[in-house]
């Protein structure tokens, strides 16, 4: 079950399959087409997209520095590059760059260095509410079954769980609650929704 994407040390590992839970849709397993590059490769470049995989999520800090380069733009235009936000990336300071990135990135991700660091919940909320990002946002890093519901409600719609997590249990998390007492990305609080 626990096929892992740990072939390279410079990649952020996760379960082979991801959980997709589009807004208004149902949660389901899907193949993971994206490598998550940690940015730690010595040469300072992307992983080899020819041999490893065709699509890569790169650190946003790398994008800030390299997004003017022709080969980066070419790959991005080809839909091969997305970015992920570290917990201390101040996305609001780079709102213009994120606005420009909307034309390139098929998805973005936010990283959880450890499951109990909730900063990326606010990142996802800001991406949805403030920056108007309307494509996929993936939860990456130390992603556990018991944080999925919170992630789904703040704006994440795909989840690269840690390799040891049971995906069948994960899939059952999203319908544990039929009511809410505050608004979320997925809908209004129950009281407003029923009015």
């Amino acid at each position, binding site marked *: 079950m626990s096929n892992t994407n740990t072939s390279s040390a410079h990649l952020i590992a996760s379960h082979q399959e991801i959980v997709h839970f589009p807004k208004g849709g149902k949660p389901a397993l899907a193949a993971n087409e994206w490598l998550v590059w940690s940015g730690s490769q010595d040469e300072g470049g992307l992983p080899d997209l020819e041999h490893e995989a065709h699509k890569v999520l790169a650190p946003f800090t790398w994008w800030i520095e390299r997004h003017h380069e022709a080969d980066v733009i070419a790959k991005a235009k080809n839909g091969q590059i997305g970015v992920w936000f570290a917990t201390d990336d101040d996305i609001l300071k780079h709102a213009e760059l994120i606005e420009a990135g909307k034309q390139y990135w098929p998805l973005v991700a936010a990283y959880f260095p450890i499951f109990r660091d909730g900063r990326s*919940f606010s990142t996802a909320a800001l991406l949805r509410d403030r920056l108007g990002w309307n494509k996929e946002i993936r939860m990456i890093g130390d992603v556990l079954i*018991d944080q999925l519901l919170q*992630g789904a409600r703040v704006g994440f719609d795909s989840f690269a769980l840690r390799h040891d997590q049971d995906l069948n249990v994960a899939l059952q998390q999203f319908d544990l609650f039929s*009511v809410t007492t505050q608004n979320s990305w997925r809908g209004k609080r129950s009281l407003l929704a029923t009015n």
Partner: protein
Amino acid sequence: MYKYDHIDQTLVDQRVAQFRDQVSRRLNGTLAEEEFRPIRLQNGLYHQRHAFMLRVAIPYGLFSAKQLRTLALISEKYDRGYGHFTTRQNIQYNWVTLEDTPDILAELAKVEMHAIQTSGNCIRNITSDAFAGVAGDEYVDPRPVCELLRQWSTLHPEFAHLPRKFKFAVNGAKEDRTVLLCHDVGIELKKNTNNELTADIYAGGGMGRTPILGSLIKQDLPWHVLPSYLTALLRVYNRFGRRDNLYKARIKILVKALGPEEFARQVEGEWLHIKNGDDNFTQAEWNRVAQHFTKPAYKSLTALSAAQVIDLATEAEKAAFARWIERNVKSHQVPGYTSVILSLKPHGTVAPGDVTTAQMLAIADLADQYSFGELRATHEQNLVLADVEQSKLYELWQEAKRQKVALPNVGLLTDIIACPGGDFCSLANAKSLPIAKAIQERFDDLDYLFDLGGISLNISGCINSCGHHHVGNIGVLGVDKDGEEWYQITLGGEQGNDAAIGKVIGPSFYADEIPNVITNIINTYVKERTEDESFISTYRRLGVAPFKEAAYKDKLENAKKKDEVGDKVAAGDAS
């Protein structure tokens, strides 16, 4: 009081089911302890020194006789026959098992109770004035706002893993009975000149190892925009609060580091984008909630004078009854009614705030009989019957005496706030309960206590300061030195409108020195006070010096004696 609708009930029931599954995954080993920990904490379950402790929420301190009976049954069935009321308007059970906890939560859900967010790094149980809705000095009943905020904060997804715990207090009376400025966020409710409900927001207060009083960061905020404003505030904290050091992760450190003006500016910047959104409360929500906080069916009564009330007692009991009236009975908004504080601080027997199963059942009966079936838990770890007819005070007093909850020591030196300390808590450096007991035994003379007047004495078993020692007129803090338990004294702390953080007077003491140290401090007050001057006023007038000198008097004398003996030994003339 508030009644769950189907949304509240469904949410609490589904939360129980969720936790049952999480416990079962923990027990079958597929969920690691480290990863289960934040989950169980957000369901009120701690792992303490000897066993699991379950902390049950009493939102803004208000609960019913029916709920208290369930709390009593839980203490009987799943614990050791008692519960412990805390300074945060929660009740704790000290001896539950992990396996039983889902069943306990299910029992609680049947009476509209839960343990959601009573612990963990999330928005905690919201505290408020135990006399809300009845206090004579109240200008806004805070309970509808408290309830709306309870709902808004319950299972809030964005703020489920904050840098640290996050505590709200809400006050709406002239006198602050919530320790507003020692909360992460203090919400002071007011009516503006157009009679509209508004809030002043204080942020960055807290006790712990860096006690700081909160700063005013926003004035005259309309009540209905509280969710968007608080979202902005929490978002700034969630994103920029420190996570590298547990002790520097509270919002008070962020507010201090940025300065309150800069923090307020950042919150304002965030709020600008969401202030007009539909996160805000609607009038319909207010109406639905507020209808539960209307006045009970008060009778039309004539107010009795103090003398008339005391005349209800027999001659032999008049003096004792009068004393109880003076300390444990408070004025009320409605003529002919009073609020009664049941003291959970009997001298020298149990921990402050502890109540046995039998007492809980009996107190529930008292609430039904004398106070419309409602109760309140106070920050000082006592219970309140808020709506008692003056003409029934005497019979209530006799019942309360039988249950050993009638000691007239409210606000006096032995009305000690104390955390469970090293007897239970795995964080504690030292015990709290034996210190509280020793002080109560030393000051067991009620006449003397009365003469001393209002003095708060708070004890914490460690720097986390659950016993709120920083805001006690006299604070006792357990500290660890080379594996031994020592106690540090602070003086000058105060809760209420003149809230102040106490100052450490000097090196710490052994446990068995504490009763003498307290006695010496009290004797100094008695010697120095002017007529009718309270302890804290005398302290503020004289400063720490005379109290400090008195506190260390015995230590100096003992050291001197030791030196003299040493000299004699050295001179060879020891007998």
